[in-house]
């Protein structure tokens, strides 16, 4: 099988496989289209292979390695042949980059391919900034936003300055730092339903911290965390719009209501 290594120098028009992620596919396809726009604007050719489903993290983190591998094989197969694979999620990109090599260790058929995929895989915003060297996006967002650093992106992939760098270039947008931005929001995949009360405490603290900043919008780079935070904000009656950072960077917020809110 033909293996592609990540290009050493940026390609003029790299072929990017978009890993939509299962949550974006089901709940908020607009994030996927925002990613497509950002990647195309940066000169990429984007495809979203139809056979992709999920990175396998729910099984992996539940201790079910066999099913995790079975699901993950589908991703390795689906993203053969792309220069890069990009996901609008630090968690799913982190799963592929940091965990696939371990998950497939000793698997004769998949180990090398999984390693190769891991090398080519990136979280969306860090890909734009670190690999494509995007300095500015053409977007406008009138309002003050605050940003939550989702754990996997932050600690597994070092996503921290990249979203801030691009957000600071969005016309009309003021970024106000969130105290405790690096503290987990309490989502944690199945954790939030296995331990709902603890999760509730964590997300309540997060929403309170976000509200205290005075920002009207809370952004993050992972839809899992955003569903959790948005669901808590509406339940608690806190006036806070939750959005994926890609929606703002792609200038796609006009016709798209915030997560968990109805169209006005």
């Amino acid at each position, binding site marked *: 099988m033909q293996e592609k290594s990540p290009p050493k120098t940026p390609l003029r028009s790299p072929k990017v496989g978009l890993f939509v992620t299962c949550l974006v596919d089901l709940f908020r396809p607009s994030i996927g289209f925002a990613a497509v726009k950002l990647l195309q604007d940066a000169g990429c050719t984007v495809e979203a292979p139809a056979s992709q489903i999920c990175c396998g993290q729910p099984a992996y983190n539940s201790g079910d390695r066999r099913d995790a591998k079975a699901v993950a094989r589908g991703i390795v197969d689906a993203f053969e042949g792309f220069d890069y694979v990009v996901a609008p999620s630090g968690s799913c990109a982190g799963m592929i980059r940091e965990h696939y090599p371990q998950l497939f260790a000793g698997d004769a058929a998949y180990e090398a391919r999984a390693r190769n995929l891991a090398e080519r895989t990136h979280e969306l915003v860090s890909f734009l900034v670190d690999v494509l060297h995007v300095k500015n996006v053409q977007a406008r967002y009138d309002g003050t936003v605050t940003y939550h650093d989702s754990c996997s992106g932050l600690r597994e992939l070092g996503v921290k300055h990249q979203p801030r760098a691009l957000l600071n270039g969005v016309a009309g947008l003021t970024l106000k730092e969130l105290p405790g931005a690096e503290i987990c929001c309490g989502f944690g995949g199945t954790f939030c339903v296995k331990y*709902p009360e603890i999760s509730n405490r*964590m997300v309540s603290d997060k929403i309170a911290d976000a509200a205290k900043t005075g920002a009207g919008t809370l952004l993050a780079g992972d839809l899992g965390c955003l569903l959790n935070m948005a669901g808590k904000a509406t339940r608690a009656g806190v006036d806070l719009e939750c959005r994926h950072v890609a929606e703002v960077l792609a200038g796609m917020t006009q016709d798209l209501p915030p997560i968990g809110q109805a169209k006005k």
Partner: protein
Amino acid sequence: MSFAEAPTSRNFKQNASAALRNETLQRAMGYLGFTQKRAEAVARLPEFEALRDQARDIKDHTLKHLDFYLEAYEAKVMESGGHMHWCRTPEEARRTILDLCRSVGARSVTRGKTMIGEEIALNPFLERNGIEPVETDLGEYIIQLRGEPPSHIIAPAIHVTKEQVADTFLEKHAAYGKTRLLTEPREMLEEARGILRGKFLKADAGITGANFLVAETGSSIIVTNEGNGDLTQLLPKMHIVLATPEKLVPTLEDASTILRLLARSATGQEFSVYTTVSTGPRRRADPDGPAQYHVVILDNGRISMLGTEFQDMLRCIRCSACLNHCPVYNAVGGHAYGWVYPGPMGSVLTPGLIGVDQAGALPNASTFCGKCESVCPMKIPLPKMMRHWREREYEAKLSPAIARWGLAAWAFAARRPRLYRALTRPAMAVLGRLGKRRGNFANLPLAGGWTEFRDMPAPEGKTFHQLWAERSR
């Protein structure tokens, strides 16, 4: 009360629930303050990251050659006039310590802070055998009076409010003629200090733990902030060190490398107030010291962790950085974990020591946010090992059947794109339509764990792949 005698780790979920509703506990936990101080201490030490690598390498090397270093250590202890006692089980360790205490006719023993003492439920055992154990660390002393186990490794009474301490002292110190309700921490400290002074002078044996055992010299090292450890080990006739094999480091130099990380990671201090190195009993020229020096080494399952995916856990130096930074620990406190070691390090170590069947809930109680690993001075991959425990639990079919079936059904669909899309598209279409007006659901069948506390945001309706296919047509 002792967790070692009656673990409640199985009930973590219920324990956590009660802790979240316990207003006194929540007030006591409040703001720990350690995390900020640690961050400042780390920022002041440019080589902190390099030290973490060195410390990890020192322990990895020691664990790889543990048999060699244990023998070297034993030889040095004996050379300096000390005695070694090897114990496999808590039972053996308790019995050994009791025999040692009886050999000097001990009526009371002072105790420096040891987690191993908690692990073997030493205090209740000594009491049952007619020996009064006296905890001399202020926090440990407070919870001993209250009959509670510690809820934090270095701040054992973190769950107790100032007012509760005052009440406890008023009740328990009446026997010493103290009958005034105190309001200021300083006064409480002075009262406890006065009472402990008498206990120190009366004690026939002193039992401490060890932060390090040094193979090169046969020394044990303890760190304290109160100086209680020194009085515990210097004043009585007999000093008993209760430790576990993984406390070993090859040299004093190695110990000092790791000591540079320990206090900074724990409290943000550059060094603990007292760092005390003990080597053997009192020598002829020494001004003070115990006549007998004994080291009790307890294994209790640690050796069997060597060579497994849990070996890295044996690098732990009990600094508590992982507890201090853990959002779950901060929400529920240490007692919810139901055994001796709380927080992320406990979630990895406890299943290793009392079994994953007893403690499987602990490694599940993590979002894998990774904060613990990022602050661990010994670079222990805590989330990875919690995942390994989940694997052991899953393989042994200890996780709830409904969760396993759900997972299996999901995994079956998630590797069959056509089936998966055939199932999810109509579901999302229906949810999208039903949720359009509100934008979210306050209730959803089968999603009670979610909607009990938060709304479920409604999906947009069509899936990405549906729209993508329509677009490319």
